[in-house]
């Protein structure tokens, strides 16, 4: 047992590194030894500083909205990687692929025949009341029949170490640039360790993404022009936009760079107007086209939707996919998998209560202090209540909101997310983590081996979002089975207090 972990507190949560106090899981053995050879925390902190400095110089930052000066911050990076053994990843891949298939079929159905509603699986009201449903697109013939192209599914591990889906992000999932940058930095800081571990590379992602985007182009265009549409440099994810554009060698454009003439999209170049065939848009549906959606939007392109309808330009992700990442619709994904694929879900959802459902609503209102309540369309950790960490006043405020608009909320038990050792100040402590793998749906479904592991760096916090003080870790998916079998539930640690059993 290396000194660095000597005072590591092995708490009641599932621990990614330790099976029991002082006993790492087999796939963490080598890392424990490597860190054990370090000269105390000083060396680790030195490497941590090197990493932070690298991120700052390279400008790997996000913009903080609340700050008028538009301060850029680095997304804190933690040097202790999260390691996923090969067999565990195989399980995740199978589950994510299944989920992507079902979601795509759901979207095709909901913008087509609406069988799932007619057969009583999903209440019509659920669809009609969703802010992200675009009735304009019912019956629209989508390129290649692909209704969702990119999904960033948030996964967590519960107290038993079982992976569960927390939510899907089908609109504009962000964070993949940090995955790629984190790996670059890790390669500099721990080159030998990465080699010894046979970590699977993540670098193919941008190739796969470009192939997907090109695949979506109108079929008569032999060499399509692909661009990335950004809201602009003040968007919190601007770093990512420019990173991806650079990696793919495509133009990054703002709405004002594009014009629509005769239902075709062009970009304004110094020498004239050049045609555009595929737009990887990183702005929401609402802002895409002021003639169709929000009239006050300055970010979009007037006439874009008509060009899209005519098949002159492809959008990634398509318009209207947001209906499937409505957090209330999420509740039904388990049923969709059964309905469309005739299979049992490989990755279970987190137990979820719908306040739109009268029975569930009663339960939710009676148990607010124990639950996590989320509004169905917010992201980034906003608009949520973490019951056990909230004051009575906050709970009452949410109670009123829920009663006022039940459709707008769901509730989930507080899950004790798994923890992973992380550098905290000058010690190593367990911090809660989640995982966002990125799934591409093109000619085939491709999943980057790994994903963004976010870590709640604030002690005891369960909120991992960057906007809420979270950080990230490199995620290592191992190429082969050098690791012990999956930790079975019976071996996992002490009883769980925070989980609400129903």
């Amino acid at each position: 047992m290396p000194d660095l972990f000597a005072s590591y507190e092995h708490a009641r949560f599932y621990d990614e590194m330790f099976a029991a106090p002082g006993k790492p899981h087999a796939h963490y053995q080598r890392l424990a030894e490597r860190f054990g050879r370090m000269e105390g925390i000083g060396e680790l902190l030195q490497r941590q500083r090197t990493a932070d400095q690298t991120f700052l110089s390279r400008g790997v930052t996000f913009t903080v909205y609340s700050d008028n000066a538009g301060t850029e911050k680095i997304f804190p990076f933690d040097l202790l990687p999260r390691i996923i053994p090969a067999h565990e990843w195989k399980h995740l891949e199978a589950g994510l692929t299944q989920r992507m298939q079902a979601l795509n079929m759901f979207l095709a159905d909901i913008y087509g025949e609406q069988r799932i509603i007619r057969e009583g699986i999903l209440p019509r009201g659920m669809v009609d009341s969703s802010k992200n449903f675009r009735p304009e697109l019912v019956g629209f013939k989508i390129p290649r029949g692909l209704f969702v192209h990119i999904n960033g599914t948030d996964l967590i591990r519960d107290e038993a170490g079982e992976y569960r889906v927390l939510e899907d992000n089908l609109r504009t999932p962000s964070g993949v640039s940090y995955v790629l940058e984190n790996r670059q930095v890790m390669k500099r800081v721990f080159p030998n360790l990465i080699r010894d571990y046979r970590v699977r590379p993540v670098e193919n992602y941008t190739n796969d993404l470009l192939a997907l985007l090109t695949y979506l182009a109108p079929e008569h265009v032999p060499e399509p022009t692909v661009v990335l549409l950004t809201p602009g440099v003040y968007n919190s994810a601007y770093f990512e936009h420019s990173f991806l554009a650079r990696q793919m060698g495509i133009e990054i454009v703002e709405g004002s760079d594009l014009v629509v003439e005769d239902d075709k999209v062009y970009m304004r170049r110094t020498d004239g107007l050049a045609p555009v065939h595929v737009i990887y848009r990183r702005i929401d549906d609402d802002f895409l086209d002021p003639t169709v959606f929000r009239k006050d939007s300055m970010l979009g392109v007037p006439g874009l939707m008509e060009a899209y309808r005519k098949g002159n330009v492809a959008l990634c992700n398509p318009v209207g996919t947001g209906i499937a990442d409505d957090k209330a619709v999420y509740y039904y994904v388990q049923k969709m998998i059964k309905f469309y694929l005739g299979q049992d879900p490989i990755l279970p959802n987190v137990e979820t209560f719908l306040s739109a459902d009268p029975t569930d609503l009663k339960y939710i209102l009676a148990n607010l202090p124990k639950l996590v309540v989320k509004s169905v369309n917010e992201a980034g950790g906003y608009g949520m209540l973490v019951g056990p960490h909230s004051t009575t006043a906050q709970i009452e405020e949410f109670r009123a909101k829920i009663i006022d608009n039940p459709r707008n909320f769901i509730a989930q038990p507080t899950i004790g997310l798994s923890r992973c050792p992380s550098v905290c100040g000058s010690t190593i402590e367990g911090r809660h983590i989640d995982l966002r793998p990125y799934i591409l749906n093109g000619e085939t479904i491709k999943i980057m081996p790994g994903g963004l592991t976010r870590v709640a760096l604030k002690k005891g916090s369960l909120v991992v979002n960057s906007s809420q003080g979270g950080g990230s870790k490199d995620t290592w998916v191992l190429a082969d089975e050098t690791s012990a079998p999956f930790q079975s539930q019976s071996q996992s640690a002490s009883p769980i207090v925070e989980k609400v059993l129903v």
Partner: protein
Amino acid sequence: MLSRVANLIFWTARYLERAENAARLLDVNAQLVLDLQSRQAADDPRSWEPLVYVCGGDELFHKLYGQEVTERTVVDFVLFNRQNPSSFLSCIAYARENARCIRDQLAGEVWEELNTFYLKLKEDDYSRYAQLGSSEYLSFLKGRIQLFYGVASSMIPRTQMWWFFELGRFMERADNTSRILDVKYYMLLPDNTSVGSALDMVQWASVLRSCSAFEAFRKSRRGQLTLERVVDYLVRDHFFPRSILFSLSEAGFALAQITAAAPHLADNAAARLIASLRDHLEKTVIKEAIADGLHEYLDDIQLRLGEIHAATQETFINYSSDTAKVLA
């Protein structure tokens, strides 16, 4: 390339050139003050005031500092004050912000050079300047900009990206050189009787130095420093990289490169205006220009540079999409 991107790289170059110019001017003034013969003269606010005029911000200066014209306030204004849009730090911040907008197009090293410089610079203030001494501190600033040019010139492909960069850089340089001359003519002399005095010579030498032109001037013109000779050199020399004529030729060359790939834009207003201004400079007899009023002559050049700027914007950046050519 995208019009917006062309505009951003153009302005990046202008800001960098403007920043470098601020550092050069400050350097020259600081050295000039050291040359002043009495301690009293060195402390005289008038020794620092001209700089504020060169940077075109006297009104703003007095708003920010009142009547307190000292080395400290002027240096703070010219180098560090973010409320002065032409301060060194502001220019670097704008250049870096522009580069951030187009970093997908820039080589990583180009962006990192500017980013790390900005991050280092934004912690600095007058006390840092005073601690190191003007000469050392300013040569650090100029050095970092030269370093950026070095990285840029070895990393940026000679596509439109580069030529818009060059266009911005030389347009700004032509403008800066005309301003330096203008201010010297009106501000630096205590009164007209000093023309030709030892102090006058020291000051003309300082003007040349602020354009890093002193040695080049000596080599090329082999003569005494006189008003006419210095002005002629900085306005009309064909070989000196900071003369107005040279900068204008480079700007014209950059513009020709930009339109080489777009023949339908070859006959553009900016190119015509550049040719006409060059012609005007070639024909100028400096002695006559001075007799008619150097300030008016320089003012006219600045005006025409402004028209060239507006014409490039109209042709490549803000054109109306109704009239634009639709590319295949």
